[in-house]
């Protein structure tokens, strides 16, 4: 069994990699920061005595995506689980001021994700097995003025995963969407919030377990499903006046 973690230098991705390595999987750690990815791979190998390798993955470099998967499979065998944990929140104000910034956010979170998913889907359907986990965000559930560039890209990614899940279901390949609320990561560090913040360790354990049980859409922490249910239920007439 081989797990490929894309965007592996985030704390959540690292912790997800730990769970798969702990279960005995070989792990390929792919990220833009290769030096950091190598440290993470070394850690997985020391802690869990599994083979772990690192390499470069840049969501924007879509031409390299299928080559990366070939490389991983040549080194570690067929990818049984792929975790898409990369993302870029960008900066809403900058995205509004410069389309280049907006485009980068869209391309990292959506275009790049589609590119790597299609390459993975081709491999997995040929074998009739595999799991793709897309780490999304509750920000993709409804557009809001504070982060709609990022939110719309994540929302599009969520729709894409829905379609992919529908297509791959009959092929024996599972697609899970994980929508994360507040997790104690770089993104939320120092943020003042009254809503409880989950630890990356707990989030990763939940994602690992849900992927095993072939859950379709996971909200973590689970109360976010209710929060987003309420937020999605607000009529647009009222919603457009709100500051959320």
């Amino acid at each position, binding site marked *: 069994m081989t797990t490929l973690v894309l965007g592996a230098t985030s704390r959540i991705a690292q912790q997800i990699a730990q769970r798969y390595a702990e279960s005995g999987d070989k792990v390929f750690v792919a990220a833009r920061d290769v030096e950091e990815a190598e*440290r993470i791979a070394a850690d997985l190998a020391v802690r869990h005595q599994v083979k772990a390798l690192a390499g470069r993955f840049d969501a924007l470099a879509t031409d390299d995506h299928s080559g990366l998967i070939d490389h991983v499979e040549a080194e570690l065998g067929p990818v049984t689980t792929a975790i898409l944990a990369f993302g870029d929140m960008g900066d809403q104000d900058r995205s509004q001021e410069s389309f280049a910034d907006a485009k980068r956010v869209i391309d990292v979170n959506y275009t790049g994700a589609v590119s790597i998913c299609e390459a993975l889907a081709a491999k997995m359907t040929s074998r009739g097995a595999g799991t793709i986990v897309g780490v999304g965000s509750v920000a993709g559930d409804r557009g809001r003025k504070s982060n709609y560039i990022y939110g719309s890209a994540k929302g599009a990614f969520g729709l894409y995963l829905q379609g992919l899940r529908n297509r791959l279901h009959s092929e024996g390949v599972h697609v899970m969407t994980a929508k994360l609320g507040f997790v104690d990561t*770089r993104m939320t*560090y120092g943020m003042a919030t009254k809503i409880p913040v989950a630890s990356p360790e707990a989030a990763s354990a939940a994602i690992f377990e849900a992927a095993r049980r072939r859950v379709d859409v996971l909200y973590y922490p689970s109360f976010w499903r209710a929060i987003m249910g309420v937020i999605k239920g607000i009529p647009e007439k009222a919603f457009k006046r709100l500051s959320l």
Partner: protein
Amino acid sequence: MAQWTERELWGWGRYPRVPARVGRPERRSEVMAAFADRDASGLLAHGLGRSYGDAALLRDGKVLLTRRLDRMLAFDPETGWLRCEAGVSIEDILETFVPRGWFPPVTPGTKFVTVGGALACDIHGKNHHVDGCWSNHVRRVELLTASGDVVICDAQNEPELFKATVGGMGLTGLMLSMEVQLVPIHSPWIEMESVRVENLDHFFEVSAESADFTHTVSWIDCVTTGKGMGRGIFMRGRHARPHIDGNEGVVGVAKDVLAPFLDVPVDGPSWLLNKASIKTFNEVYFRRHPKGSHESVVHFEPFFYPLDAIRNWNRIYGKRGFLQYQLVVPREPDHRSLRAVLEAITSSGMGSFLAVIKEFGAQDNGGLSFPMPGVTLALDFANYGDPLLALLDRLDRIVVEAGGRVYLGKDARLEPDTFRAMYPDWKAWRDVRDTWDPTGVFRSDLGRRLGLCMGGV
């Protein structure tokens, strides 16, 4: 870009508490970004916050939490050498390596410390008399120095920097990784013997006849005076030999079930630990143990980390926090200084709730490293304020007179002159530090208070 957040930080004693700008890097590149973002207020690493006083604090400065810099980088199963980042904890090492038959070479009374903190405080454990300190098992450190250069130092390359980093309280640079040698074990079990000691002289007798035990420590009653002064429970043990097997039994299972609930979720009321309750606790603890000695095979967790089972136990002292005072004095034939210390405590009426005593071995690493040949005594005091500070000043005088010192990793109140008398190597240490950090990038409140770094006295 480095992320900083304004918040209050404190050590395990929860005294003092100081505001700082706190960052939490997760990647090497973020460490470098935070370093580049330093300013005149200085920079300091903060691991798991288990030093008691102000060693890991820097008022209004920039403090980097290292807990997420916790990658294990390489392990050699032939020799036990582990290379890991500074934010790896003893708990991480235990979880990973006990099942494979390896143990940290030295461990303090809690597993919630990082290896970076372990080297910065040059921690010791129950096996000091045999194995020395943490640094005696570390051969190399990768250090981000004040110039921005990453220096790998060891006995050959920049040996002075390596030596100054040992026990250097994090003031020589930011530790990135180190190489530490784990020791082989046969099982998680400890062959243990506890002996009730009736007084201070008896403690030294039992200690002397414990030579074939690698681990020794004794709980000591700091309330009782007269004939029973220094009575306590002496614990000695060793990693179990191959044919010895333990059984967690009902108590072990119950502990696992209860573990999530053993927590002190709120601050204890200030009256909780008073003269009477401390006296009662000490009496019960002593009486509970039958006269003579008792042999058992126990799991390493309760043997090494009895208090780790109760999360946030430091909160029983309430909002005011507490101070720990750990001293070492050279051995004296009549144990005059130790007696003077115990007498000063009992006559002050400020009892120590929990106190331990141990004989150190010959290993003395110099510099700012605490252990030296002699007897060490560690005392916890609720923060009674000025009367306590006055008592600790009195204890300082006894310790200095005896040629001893106190442990900086636990200190929150030592005066610079007293410190200098206790650590005669301080000047040489500071010279090395200043060579590597001439502008005072790395600072701490302890360092400023004791004149170890810039921005202080």
